């Protein structure tokens, strides 16, 4: 069997498994419901009513995406990459390189989670389009792309965290995945801003720039805000990054490059870890 056909076989098997999994189905439903709720209730706080346009919905949905998508991808990915002991033993005793099996499964999981998000974005997108027209559609699509990028980053991280774990070690891998999510999504910004407040302006800026690029969730947030609202919505870290790069195009390229590194490097490390693991 060629590597491409093994990749295809594993990806399609993983896609079927993920689509049949209750967790993926619930994620698709909840994501669609939240996206609909956000688009339908955006004007309530300002005393209005009706469905928001694409740009406002994208802005409102950004924090939800940054919060929910990494958690879901980390949990689904870690569970899939740390199967039952007997399943792992049977799979990895086949005459196929472990890294090929891993890449195939990664592709399948990615396709399944992107499909689940597409349902959420698609349903709310259809409602917005029917009620408010296509104004700001690019912002909405940018958020969709950011969500896809976060899914890829989180699945790569999940593959690295699980890295050959099977059976009893699955619980430990899941606990690590939750810790990674909490640090990246909740704790990281607080610590970075806290440390920066203790420093003088120059070192503080450098710390915040590094912090933005070092955490893919922050990098994606900065990229989305830059694309949707320009610099008006920027916090101190993002403004520091913008000053450092000297323009929005360079900042966007740096963010894209940073996110690509966060997709590729953990996945390569996961493949290497899996090759060396005792199953």
């Amino acid at each position, binding site marked *: *069997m060629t590597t491409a056909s*093994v990749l295809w076989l594993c990806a399609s098997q993983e896609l079927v*498994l993920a689509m049949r999994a209750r967790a993926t189905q619930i994620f698709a439903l909840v994501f669609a419901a939240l996206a609909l709720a956000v688009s339908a209730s955006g004007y309530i706080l300002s005393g209005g009513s009706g469905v928001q346009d694409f740009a406002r919905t994208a802005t409102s949905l950004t924090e939800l995406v940054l919060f929910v998508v990494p958690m879901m991808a980390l949990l689904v990915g870690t569970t899939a990459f740390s199967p*039952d002991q*007997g399943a792992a*033993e049977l799979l990895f*005793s*086949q005459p196929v390189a472990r890294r090929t099996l891993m890449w195939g499964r990664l592709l399948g999981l990615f396709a399944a989670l992107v499909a689940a998000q597409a349902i959420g974005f698609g349903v709310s997108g259809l409602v917005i389009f029917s009620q408010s027209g296509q104004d700001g559609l690019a912002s909405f699509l940018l958020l969709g792309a950011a969500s896809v990028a976060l899914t890829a980053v989180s699945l790569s991280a999940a593959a690295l965290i699980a890295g050959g774990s099977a059976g009893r070690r699955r619980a430990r891998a899941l606990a690590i995945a939750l810790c990674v999510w909490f640090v990246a999504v909740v704790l990281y910004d607080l610590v970075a801003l806290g440390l920066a407040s203790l420093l003088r302006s120059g070192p503080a800026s450098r710390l915040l720039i590094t912090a933005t690029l070092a955490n893919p969730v922050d990098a994606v947030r900065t990229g989305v805000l830059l694309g949707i609202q320009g610099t008006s919505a920027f916090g101190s870290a993002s403004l520091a990054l913008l000053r450092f790069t000297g323009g929005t195009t360079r900042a966007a390229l740096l963010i894209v490059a940073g996110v690509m590194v966060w997709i590729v490097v953990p996945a390569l490390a996961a493949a290497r870890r899996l090759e060396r693991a*005792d199953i």
Partner: protein
Amino acid sequence: MITFRRFTKTFAAQPAVRDLSLEIAGGEAVALLGPNGSGKTTTLKAAAGLIRPTSGDVLIGEPGVTARDPRARRALSFLPQRVAFPESLTGREVIDFYRRLRGVEPAAADAALTLASLNGSSNRAISTYSGGMVQRLGLAVALLPSSPVMLLDEPTAALDPDGLCAFYSVIEHRKAAGQTILFTSHQLGDAERLADRFAILVEGTLAALLTARELGDRLASRGVLRLRIENAPADLFDRLRRLSPGATRAGDQWIVPGPAGSRPAVVDLVRESGASILGLTAEEGRLDVFYRDLVGGRS
């Protein structure tokens, strides 16, 4: 066909297998026997390329390729001890996945399902299978390719009588066709029925490597005759101990260890003394007793 060359595996400074050297020729069936934690599964998993030796080599095929190499795994099928599959898949989906992964023709899937007696239930979700059916599905996956080497980890542990029958029939057929088989078992019956040789692991070390006949002799010498005796003369027990020095008694129960061939002489001695035999049972040697003797012999 399978070569362990000074194979050692250590988990967190705890040796699981120590310095194992064993050669298994093509077409041979070897049973790995030993108590729990003796290193049987570790040995089998090393042959399947699932674990990396701490030192030494495990080679598959002729000329030998290291077991971690996918080329080596092309030559073997492995059935894990407690096989598991995603519960949302059907049996046929599982078989089809592994069939395509191994590049086996579609007809082999039906044949494997039939051999594992799963043809009628192959379109059901695995969540509806019993433990025995899941194990039989694992066996069907292992039987898909006609690979030269089969590695089976306690293959009969979860099988019901029907599954056992199907298993023996398939494995005996594969053995007759020249397949090399390395398997672990706690069932002496499996081992005796299938194996040409017995590798006995105790505390991670190869304690004995025996042919079927040699194992039979060793076990026979560890048999026990239990007698319930009444009206025994005072000197009968001493005379009995001259025949079997390990003889013991508790009340009217007399326990006389020794091979099956020595038992008629014991019964004759008791009868000639004028004592009455109220009951008599004979037990053949048990593997666990044999393992204990091997540990005692080593220490």
